[in-house]
């Protein structure tokens, strides 16, 4: 039986889709069978980020409504054998499916795949409720900004009300800005959100570049962000103890960016 993980945030634009694409790809690279589910119905992006938008024939609403089997709607990744995408519909909106529909769908996918990664839309309304239905756990993505943290806190409250355990990924963190006092630090974020920390993705231009090309950053594997995604994937698959690694990693970021004494 596979695991269903929903990537959520509350706030839009903090990196949920990028995280879904990169984590999914990294897990597939580690040898697991992975299916990515785009739950952002009406505003689909996961297919673009994965570079598979030209291959969509059927989508998740089709599969739920019974127009096709789930198998027919799944798209195999261009590069990796064991990575699949279930795209969202662009022409429907979030009321097209119900939480129960999603629960059934996700359960069916869990029977066939090691990991079911669900890309949650921004907000806390129907789309959010649909996306978390059927999830075993959640990864909350937040950037070190007050508005993002506020929304993430709201989402964590809703997740705990729904009995979905959550962990935190801090995205787009800049050690230089943290050092200058212009950005909240990793520990500031954790202090407010009071969540178990999974990882911290540094602000990385590589990610933007590769996203636009439809190539997840972990496929190149060299950038700092890519390495952190890969490390998180290892943690998710139970391969690595994260605590000691985090400290060393931050120092490495600092040094790579040319800072002599970087705070952990």
């Amino acid at each position, binding site marked *: 039986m596979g695991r269903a993980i929903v990537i959520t945030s509350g706030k839009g634009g903090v990196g949920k889709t990028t995280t879904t694409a990169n984590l999914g790809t990294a897990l597939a690279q580690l040898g697991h069978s992975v299916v990515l589910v785009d739950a952002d119905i009406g505003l689909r992006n996961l297919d673009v980020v994965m570079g598979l938008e030209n291959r969509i024939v059927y989508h998740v609403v089709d599969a739920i409504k019974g127009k096709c089997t789930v198998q027919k709607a799944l798209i195999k990744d261009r590069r990796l054998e064991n990575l699949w995408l279930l795209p969202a519909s662009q022409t429907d909106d979030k009321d097209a499916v119900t939480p129960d529909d999603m629960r059934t769908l996700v359960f069916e996918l869990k029977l066939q795949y090691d990991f079911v990664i669900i890309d949650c839309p921004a907000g806390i309304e129907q789309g959010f409720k649909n996306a978390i239905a059927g999830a075993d756990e959640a990864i909350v993505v937040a950037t070190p900004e007050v508005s993002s943290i506020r*929304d993430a806190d709201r989402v964590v*409250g809703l997740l705990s009300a729904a009995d979905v355990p959550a962990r935190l990924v801090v995205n787009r963190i800049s050690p230089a800005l943290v050092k200058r006092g212009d950005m909240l630090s990793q520990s500031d974020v954790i202090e407010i959100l009071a969540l178990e920390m999974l990882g911290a993705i540094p602000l990385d231009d590589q990610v933007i570049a590769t996203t636009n090309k439809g190539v997840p950053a972990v496929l190149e594997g060299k950038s700092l962000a890519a390495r952190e995604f890969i490390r998180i994937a290892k943690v998710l698959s139970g391969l690595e103890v994260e605590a000691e690694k985090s400290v060393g990693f931050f120092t490495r970021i600092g040094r790579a960016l040319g800072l002599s004494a970087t705070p952990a």
Partner: protein
Amino acid sequence: MDPSTAALALDETPSVIDELSAPVDGPAALLRGTARGLEMVVNGRAPVDAVIAALTARLEEAPAFFRGSNVRIAVEHGPLPAGCLSRLDDLAVAFALSIIEVGAAKAKDPVPRANLAAGSGPTAEMFGDEEPTGTIKPALLLAQLASTGGAQPIAPASTGLSEPVELAPAELTEMVEVDPAGQAEPDPLHLGAAAEFAVEEPTHTGKAPIALAAMPEIPAPSEGTRLVIGPVRSGVILEHEGHLFIFGDVNPGAEVRATGNIIVLGRLRGTAHAAIGQDVGFILALRLEPQQLRIGRRVTRAGDDASPPTDSEIAYIAGDAIVVERYLGKLPRNLATSI
């Protein structure tokens, strides 16, 4: 025996009976209580009259109290002067005491009572004697006393009592036989923990020293007090009729509401409304940094240039406004009286 009287009497025993102690170093005699019971400490160098007078004076302070006690005689700077022991015996009879042991005063107990009662013959080891000469063997003296039936001048030890003399066990046993009832009761003066002077122990009577009803209290409403484990997340409304305790933070965007008082054992960063429908109430937090505070019908917010607090703070209504004070362990005076 009344324990309270015991405490009173024995408190005074260490005092010296000075008018009788002039020619000797130290007091002529002392009466004191030890863990093993009543003890007469006799200064062997003091005149017999002084010794007896001193002890008589002490015993006369509370004759009823001492009546029936077993008493040990501990001799300092021995030996006992001539005639002293029989005078002590008379004294004991007069005050209805039983002399159960006579020995040299030592830091440690020289003779375990059990040994005497068992009737084994006295030896130097038993008395723990280390003084070479001039040491009496009290058991011997007592035995003599018994056998002669009364007062008899006792020669000073130097005339031949320095050697332990074997006595017929039966004789000895009879004399020093411990009152079985007394033996069964290791505390003949019923002093309990107070018997040992060295150690101050409280009497455990099981009663609280102050009646609890005397403490001032804030009444709890019928709904009771609720203890919630935080953090209270953004968007959550936590309501309670009664007093509300939160162990953890109240995050910005969260609302906590109560008809009673609100105490946040964490950071209050959301909105809190206490004393809903009342006029009096307070909000206390380890770190009071709220978006808004409401008490009763009043509202307030932190000033625009307010810095984060460094101490616990309490907010309450004073006059027409909500005031915020540092909370250092006591409720503010005007709040405590009005609540």
